[in-house]
């Protein structure tokens, strides 16, 4: 499709397990973002990739969180040893260039940690 694609759309896991979330940005978009939205909260910035520059990881909440991006394509967000407070919708977005502007969001991956 032409939009940002995320998988899985829903993930239920047990506390302590690792999870991997995937994002396929819009083709040609050099910038990719991960946000998360906890229940009733706003969108919380996690990490930002721009081309081959070093990612801005300033929003990652702990060292259990990591993300990778291969070139200007797919990104994976990995959460190790999941905790119940990690339960949230994880949203990926992409945009054309380095200047923040209109972000195109995927539908999100809903993570539930039991």
């Amino acid at each position, binding site marked *: 499709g032409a939009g*940002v694609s995320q998988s899985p759309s829903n993930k239920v896991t047990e506390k302590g397990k690792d999870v991997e979330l995937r994002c396929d940005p819009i083709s040609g978009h050099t910038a990719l973002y991960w*946000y998360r939205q906890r229940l009733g909260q*706003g*969108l919380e910035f996690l990490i*930002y990739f721009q081309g081959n520059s070093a990612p801005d990881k300033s929003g990652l909440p702990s060292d259990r969180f990591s993300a990778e991006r291969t070139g200007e394509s797919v990104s994976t967000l990995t959460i190790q040893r999941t905790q119940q407070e990690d339960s949230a919708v994880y949203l990926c977005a992409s945009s054309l260039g380095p200047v*923040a*502007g209109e*972000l195109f969001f*995927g*539908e999100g991956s809903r993570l539930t940690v039991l």
Partner: protein
Amino acid sequence: DQQVKQNSPSLSVQEGRISILNCDYTNSMFDYFLWYKKYPAEGPTFLISISSIKDKNEDGRFTVFLNKSAKHLSLHIVPSQPGDSAVYFCAASLRGGAQKLVFGQGTRLTINP
């Protein structure tokens, strides 16, 4: 440290009337502001933006106003329609520096027939 704040978690407006959603920010370095709309189970979609060199931007039924001295922006929707019922997020960024968008907590707008 909530740099972008939407103090009203919800707003209810009658169809045909004006909806006004408000947003305050604390970082005076922000120079670009956006509004996003989110329906349930969907990702946010871009609605309208404004640069800090302007104080108003209009797109059809949607107008965003920026008051830099008050560090306040608002989104006006007129006339309001039932399809406008959604959660609205304001966001801010630094064009020349960090590119990440900082979002507010969102305001749930309900348009009543």
